[in-house]
């Protein structure tokens, strides 16, 4: 994959994505954003969002050039106002008549594909690299309806066996509908890789559980189970320990499955992604990712949230530097084409309801 211009005549070089953000720098931006949001009773949050997004985009660099985020805060503020309004209206309806509230949820679900597409279009059109805007196919609503409504609904009846297929379709939706200028992204991922990722993650989880069980059993045997009247306090200790261990189990062990699954499917998807003459390579390592996730979590908890910015920069740097672009080193073949505007409602709504579109 090194620069090789002699044999094929098609020079190809390896271009890792760089991330130049720093924890201390982002901390200052984050805390000022927070305090201005508090002092303006939340109105500044739209400006804060744009500033944060710009900080991360401007520090993400390919071929020596940063990305740029173009959304105007006032667009986002309008979107947020609409979402909050809708949410309050729903709360009122649900309070007055829970059945009507349920119907409102169903209607909202009907709009979900439209919202996802709108959010993707908004995000893409407001992102650029070398001043070439990204774009997203606004006609992908039918596909969105399948990926985000129909398949998840069907998967209820298939014991999760459809999950890898949904992930596969989600990535295909996010990538194959995207463009940079006039150049389309393509994805040639094999469905089998997603099922492999699912079962590898599952095996990993089972392996960890079994070894934890064995370790726990051996330790108990060595200490010996307490008997007799003096064991009362030991029993109390146990009664306290059991729920704590259960909590630790859910917080520490279960996420390993999700981290592994996400990392493996992201690798599978990006490794099969193409943009014009460029190939991508994603080199995420499950162990490294687990370490970052858990040490981040610990740092955030121990610092009562003050290390949040540091943690976010850290994970972003890891994700960025493990994405590598291969292809002609002079990245000048992309063309703008026509520019289009986008409104912010979709973006905000999806943010609010935590729609995960598995984006790049």
């Amino acid at each position: 994959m090194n620069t090789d211009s002699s044999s094929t005549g098609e020079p190809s070089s390896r271009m890792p994505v760089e991330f130049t953000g720093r924890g201390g720098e982002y901390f200052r931006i984050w805390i000022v954003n927070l305090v201005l949001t508090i002092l303006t009773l939340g109105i500044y949050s739209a400006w804060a969002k744009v500033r944060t997004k710009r900080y991360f985009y401007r520090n993400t660099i390919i071929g020596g050039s940063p990305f740029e985020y173009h959304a105007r805060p006032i667009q986002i503020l309008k979107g947020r106002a609409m979402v909050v309004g809708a949410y309050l209206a729903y709360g009122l309806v649900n309070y007055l008549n829970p059945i009507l509230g349920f119907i409102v949820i169903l209607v909202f679900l009907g709009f979900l594909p439209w919202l996802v597409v709108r959010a993707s279009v908004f995000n893409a059109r407001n992102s650029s690299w070398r001043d070439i805007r990204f774009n997203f196919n606004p006609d992908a609503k039918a596909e969105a309806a399948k990926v985000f409504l129909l398949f998840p609904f069907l998967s209820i009846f298939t014991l999760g066996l459809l999950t890898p297929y949904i992930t596969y379709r989600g990535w295909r939706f996010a990538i194959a509908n995207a463009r940079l200028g006039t150049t389309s992204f393509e994805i040639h991922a094999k469905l089998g890789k997603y099922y492999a990722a699912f079962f590898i993650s599952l095996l990993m989880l089972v392996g960890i559980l079994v070894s934890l069980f064995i370790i726990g059993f051996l330790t108990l045997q060595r200490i010996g189970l307490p008997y007799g009247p003096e064991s009362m306090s030991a029993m109390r200790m146990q009664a306290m320990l059991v729920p704590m261990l259960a909590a630790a189990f859910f917080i520490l062990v279960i996420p390993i499955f999700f981290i592994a699954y996400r990392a493996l499917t992201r690798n599978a998807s990006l490794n099969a992604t193409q943009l014009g003459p460029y190939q991508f390579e994603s080199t995420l390592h499950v162990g490294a990712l687990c370490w970052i996730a858990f040490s981040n979590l610990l740092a955030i908890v121990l610092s009562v949230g003050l290390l949040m910015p540091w943690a976010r920069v850290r994970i972003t740097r890891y994700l960025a530097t493990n994405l590598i672009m291969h292809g002609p080193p002079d990245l000048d073949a992309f063309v703008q084409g026509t520019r289009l505007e986008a409104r912010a409602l979709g973006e905000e709504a999806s943010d609010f309801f935590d729609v995960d579109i598995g984006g790049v």
Partner: protein
Amino acid sequence: MDRVAYFYDGQGSSRTTVRLKIDCQMRLIKFQLGQEQKRYRTNDLVISPRLGSTPRRIETPDGCILDVPDNEAIDQLINASEIPVPGRWIHRLESKFRYVILSVVITVLFVWLLAGYGIPVIAKHVAFMVPVTANSVLGEDVLVALDKVIFSESQLSINDKQKLTKRFFSVAESMSDDYKFRLVFRRGGKIGANAFALPDGTVILTDELVEKAQTLSEVELVLAHELGHVVYRHSLRQVIQSSTVALLIMAITGDVSSAAVLAGALPTLLVESHYSREFEKEADQFAYDYAMARGISPRHFINLLDRLSDTDGDLGFLSTHPSVQDRSQIFSAQ
């Protein structure tokens, strides 16, 4: 002096490195692009506000972009040209240590006040706006569920039940008619000596607690404590407070991802155990006031608590309550 800058024409993705000449006196920038000499007056440019140490973005009137890594040079140009750059002052806040410290202090103080005082006050007001009848929806289902999982039939004598029920209604008679007050007897089993209040006015009393009590007044004050939870609408307030805290943590961490939820788990736990201690204090106060009004010695309540704390397991009446020492203080300080 010349600065390195990167030029993009807005049409294609080629990048050209140029030597940017910044002329603060004449308020203009110029650079050589191939054969062409480009020259712009600062008034015609859109310069992005400074953002950390990221390169400055300059938009020219003909739709081109310049990325300039040297932020200081651009700041000098902006100052000399007196052109407006919206949001410039934000970087000044971010770059001064004292403003950053001030921001930390304000944020921490705000979260502290909101979690400690704001949310409980708001929850109280909202809870009392909800009609009592809305609370009754919760009661019956909860009892049915508890009967299936935990309780078995009470083994108290009819006589005991009648005496206790009489005491119960002597506590309840002063309260609003909207509640469906009733006293239910169950064998606690796993949860031992305990008493619960459901939001609709149902109070569940376990045989084990009655067996631990030496006088009827002791049980009467426990019932008063439980009815205190009902009239102060603690269940509903707990629900409102928990969901508001979750929203607050979401707002601070800035996302709704699972990592944020996990990171918020510990502070949420701490805040909520603080809330539930406050509720217990309120209910204790209610029992104390009731005891004084009826001329019952508040000592009865403490006596029962002391006896429970000697033998109580981990799942009993005291497990979710403040320490007996703390509560004794409430009862003896007054």
